[in-house]
């Protein structure tokens, strides 16, 4: 390094030091740094514009067009796709199915998740290995979840199928073929697959409650129920609303569970919105109707998220 640049370097340092003092934070104001920053940011923006913004925009334009799956020509048809899907016999059925699947799954996942989080919050030997292995079902692929439940309930080989027959339980030995039991069946498998997420979040919340609160309440003579009602429950509410929203959205968006277990059947009893979209596009080859339904589905998703968000805000206000 020659003398000149060394001096220049020094100057640069002293200037930035003083700016650090003035601005409270260290910042190089040189244009080159800003260029580096922009260059680092650019690939991300480019990727997201190409891979997310454009596709979302494309869904909107497709919903106003009539276009076959394998055709390059399209025709502008205005809102007629929307009119057609609202008149479609499957729409309101799918609406009901989706709500039952989303909120039924949410309720079961919350109950199971909360129960297991409270169990794992207690101290006992080997707790950590139990905690780890209880997350397994959340990590396995959906195809594996579908495979194993289909296998356990299958006629010739299923262990659960055999148990149901032997015990004369008031349910069909093979759930997914029965119009009454297919929906509870898919909700059940979805719960088995996804409850560990609830366990993780509830466990983190439970661990954040100070044990002194419980000691103090015990000294004051509170029962265990009262301790739960006035200490544990209020602490869980914000977490419950946030994960409740996430899980509702993920249940609502879920395609794999139902598709791999029942494919929407029997008689459309388990056909949820994602399956109906899939059927419009890849079964009936109508991109336009699929896209239109996707937009409606997105609007309902927004409405649900908005309600959750308002609830969360109210809960935060009340508790603080």
């Amino acid at each position, binding site marked *: 390094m020659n003398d000149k640049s060394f001096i220049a370097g020094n100057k640069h340092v002293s200037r930035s030091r003083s700016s650090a003092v003035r601005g409270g934070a260290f910042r190089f104001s040189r244009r080159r740094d800003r260029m580096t920053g*922009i260059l680092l940011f650019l690939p991300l923006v480019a990727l997201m514009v190409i891979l997310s913004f454009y596709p979302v925009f494309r869904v909107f334009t497709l919903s106003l067009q009539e*276009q076959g799956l394998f055709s390059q020509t399209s025709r502008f048809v205005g809102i007629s796709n929307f009119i057609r899907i609202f008149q479609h016999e499957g729409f309101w059925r799918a609406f009901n199915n989706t709500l039952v699947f989303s909120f039924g799954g949410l309720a079961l996942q919350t109950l199971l998740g909360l129960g297991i989080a409270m169990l794992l919050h207690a101290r006992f030997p080997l707790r950590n290995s139990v905690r780890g292995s209880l997350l397994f079902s959340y990590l396995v692929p959906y195809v594996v979840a579908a495979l194993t439940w289909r296998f356990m309930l299958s006629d010739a080989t299923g262990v659960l199928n055999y148990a149901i027959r032997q015990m004369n339980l008031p349910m069909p030995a093979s759930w997914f073929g029965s119009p009454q039991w297919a929906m509870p069946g898919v909700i059940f498998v979805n719960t088995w697959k996804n409850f560990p997420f609830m366990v993780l979040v509830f466990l*983190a919340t439970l661990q954040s409650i100070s044990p002194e609160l419980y000691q103090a309440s015990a000294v004051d003579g509170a029962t265990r129920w009262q301790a739960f009602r006035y200490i544990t429950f209020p602490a869980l509410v914000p977490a419950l609303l946030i994960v409740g929203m*996430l899980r509702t959205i993920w249940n609502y968006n879920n395609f794999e569970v139902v598709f791999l277990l029942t494919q929407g059947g029997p008689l459309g009893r388990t056909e949820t919105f994602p399956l109906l979209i899939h059927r419009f596009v890849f079964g009936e080859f109508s991109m336009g109707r*699929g896209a239109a339904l996707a937009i409606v589905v997105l609007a309902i998703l927004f409405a649900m998220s908005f309600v959750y968000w308002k609830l969360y805000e109210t809960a935060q206000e009340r508790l603080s």
Partner: protein
Amino acid sequence: MKTLLRRIHASGINLTFVAFLVMVVLLFPLIWMTLSSFKPNPELFTRPPTILPRTWTMEHYVELFWFTSFPRYFLNTFLVGAVAVVIGVGVSLCGVYSISRFKFIGAKQFTFIMLFIYMLPPVLLSIPFFQIWYSMGMLNTLTSLIFTYLTITVPFAIWVLRPYIESIPRELEEAARVDGCTQFQAFYRVIVPQSLPGIVASMIFTFVVVWNEYLYALILITDENLRTVSLGIGSLILETSVYSWGLVNAAGAMATIPILLVFSLVQKVMVTGLTAGAVKG
């Protein structure tokens, strides 16, 4: 006092018992699948079903690896996952660093939009993706699958990486700059090594997500040679009317065990990834 201690001790043992019972019940489907993959075909159909295989056999695994295309599916999935993870995490790392160090107009909104993209129904995105790749003549290519998976890996990597990058003290970079590094050198000599745990976490996690993905593969891939593992198993259980359950179980076990092994090795890292974006901190 003594009785109290004894009671605590006893309840601890009981809790372990209860927890193990719960664990066995909840893991039963996976245990059952793995055990069944070692049973010879006739034993799979015996009534009452056997829990442990009476005769252990590797025949389904031999069939899986020598007489089906599954080795190829594993290779495809691995390839797609590796490329999607490296590109996704790399781009996200640069982007997150840039957002956290330079105050761009709209950077905050941008990260919010990333969360929004993560919430979009995949089936919604599958429509334009099919159309885009079809019009480019790229349906049935692993490249199209890789790019499509970036919509999963990038938002995820951003949510995992952000807290790591933001927790690195600026003084470190400052010191590097004083020592004559350019901004970019400071980034790859200081920030990248410092956030290595976060990078590894996001890589492992996004790889698992891609490994498990089913819907996009179902829509974009129809060529049998280009199937991913999930797609291969999916078509086994959906398309064949009479299942060869031993083979299906072996495939399922092979798709699951690598993930569970990785998870057991880096449990803590995985747990952070699982709740990324859902819990603060």
